[in-house]
């Protein structure tokens, strides 16, 4: 009984750790593993059990890597995962078979216990399979070897754990569609076929129509470097998922630093009468559109193109998504940045009114920053699944007046 509880505890702990890492697993998935074990799968070795877990619970390469690393951390070592050949079965079949009870016993021992059973919780690096190999020489400095150094045996997880997964982003953005029937008629039009049959009363060839295609175009404008550096992995994951798995008709991505357009005429700010934390509400109608700036085609911000040219090529009637922290990361409030941003958004509106802003920081970080003010005028959403769903809804045409205090 105690062993059974320990085994369940270990499995449950493993399962919960996967859920913490945003695996989309429910109790059905947990029970699926139990049923598979009851049916006799996954008992023969540690590797086979790992493969069973991967086949049931991992749905992408990154999830597979995460699951494998956690498995290494939590499960007993291969040496502990031994099997015995029951004499009666051996005699019957002449082949080896695994004893489930024995495996459970081994499976019950925790990594700590297993570590204690080996060399006092430590393992010589030289004994592990290429665990910490020697580095290669690349300069005048000689290589450093860790050969023979005793270190704690703990496999670490080197797979990024982001607040949204690739799959969540792809699923969310696949809802963004602009369906148009294009191309040769290849799809059965059932309603038209029936209608014609009923109208004419005689058998006629079926009516075909072109297939629906998603012709939606999305322009991604992504803030890079500076305060965005800590969010690079998250923004890259989100943009890649949208581009590669969002099933949009066409996507284009350009980069900028802080603001896409700079140099709005700040003389207009004199009308704010030197307020300590000025807001733009009173001068909003007077801010002229601004399109003088450059966007970059590469992530290093080296190859640039005029902003207006990019908008001419990709912006007309497209969906536009801006990715930036809007000054929230540094908790700063700069009126010049706010003015440039609002002027740019006005310029953007001359190309498309379908735009949203994704902020990698949660909403509570926007308060008292430039981002908080921008969010009063522009539909801005945090980069999590729930808010991205709303962002897609806004792009699909949902009214968003209640999202903003003072829309442009």
């Amino acid at each position, binding site marked *: 009984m105690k062993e059974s509880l320990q085994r369940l505890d270990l499995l449950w702990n493993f399962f919960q750790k996967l859920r913490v890492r945003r695996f989309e697993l429910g109790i059905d998935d947990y029970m699926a593993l139990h049923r598979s074990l009851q049916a006799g799968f996954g008992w023969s070795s540690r590797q086979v059990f790992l493969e069973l877990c991967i086949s049931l619970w991992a749905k992408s390469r990154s999830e597979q890597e995460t699951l494998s690393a956690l498995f290494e951390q939590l499960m007993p070592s291969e040496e502990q995962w031994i099997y015995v050949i029951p004499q009666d079965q051996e005699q019957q079949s002449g082949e080896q078979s695994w004893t489930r009870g024995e495996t459970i016993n081994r499976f019950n021992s925790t990594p700590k216990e297993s570590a204690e059973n080996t060399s006092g919780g430590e393992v010589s690096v030289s004994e592990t399979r290429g665990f910490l190999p020697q580095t290669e020489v690349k300069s*005048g400095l000689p290589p450093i070897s*860790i050969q023979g150094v*005793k270190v*704690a045996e*703990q496999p670490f997880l*080197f797979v990024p754990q982001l607040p949204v997964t690739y799959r969540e982003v792809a699923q969310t953005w696949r809802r963004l569609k602009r369906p148009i029937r294009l191309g040769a008629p290849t799809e059965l039009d059932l309603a038209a076929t029936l209608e014609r049959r009923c109208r004419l009363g005689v058998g006629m060839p079926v009516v075909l129509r072109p297939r629906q295609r998603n012709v939606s175009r999305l322009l991604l404008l992504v803030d890079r*470097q500076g305060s965005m550096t*800590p969010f690079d*992995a998250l923004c890259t994951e989100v943009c890649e998922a949208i581009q590669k798995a969002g099933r949009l008709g066409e996507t284009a991505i350009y980069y900028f630093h802080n603001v896409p357009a700079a140099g709005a005429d700040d003389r207009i700010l004199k009308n704010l009468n030197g307020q300590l934390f000025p807001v733009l509400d009173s001068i909003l109608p007077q801010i002229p559109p601004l399109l003088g700036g450059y966007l970059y085609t590469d992530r290093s911000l080296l190859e640039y193109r005029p902003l207006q040219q990019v908008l001419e090529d990709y912006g007309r009637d497209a969906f536009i998504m801006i990715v930036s922290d809007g000054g929230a990361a540094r908790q700063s409030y700069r009126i010049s940045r706010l003015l440039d941003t609002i002027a740019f958004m006005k310029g953007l509106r001359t190309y498309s009114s379908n735009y949203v802003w994704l902020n990698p920081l949660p909403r509570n970080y926007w308060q008292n920053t430039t981002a908080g003010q921008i969010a009063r005028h522009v539909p801005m959403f945090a980069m999590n699944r729930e808010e991205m769903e709303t962002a897609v809804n806004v792009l699909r045409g949902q009214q968003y007046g209640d999202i903003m205090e003072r829309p442009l």
Partner: protein
Amino acid sequence: MTSSELAQKKIDAFVRDQLQPEAMLDFACHAALPVALNTELLHFLRVNFFLDESPALPYTAEFELLFSPLCREIDEDLYEVEPAIRDILLQRLYAMDRGERLQKVATLLWQYLDRYSSWDQRVELARAQQLTALNFLDPAKAEAWLAEVEAEVTKGAIVQRDWSIAMRQEISDRSRVGCNLHLIHRSSFVFYAPQGF
């Protein structure tokens, strides 16, 4: 005010602003081990040591630490913890379990450098990180390696003279970790209730 007192004040100020003060301070202690940090390494430190805690540290903890007064940006996507602050944080990391966690962080650093680091083209930085990790795992071996490099520098066979002097200082500073436990223990940190409590 000495640099150590100033460092302690900065740490106290950092802790005071946090919603999860103790966890964030522990996170900062882990981040203090490498000679320099990038966002990826910091992320892996959180993922491996703070994701299964209750409550877990959210991903925003990473930028909060990087943009705090404890860290300064020294290059694109490269940050360092100030030496005086680092000393205090490492003492605390050691005090958690008499160096066991410190060794784990050093092992993670070594594995990261070995498998995932993007510092292949910056050999001096990579070696500095490796030497730091080795110094916590096997100080004698680290000392022997550095002595060998210094001998080669004297002979003129290796040109990184400034590097070897800086690393000698680093090894010397870090060797004090664990020796000054009377100066630092967990109760010396003042934890403030999160805002709104």
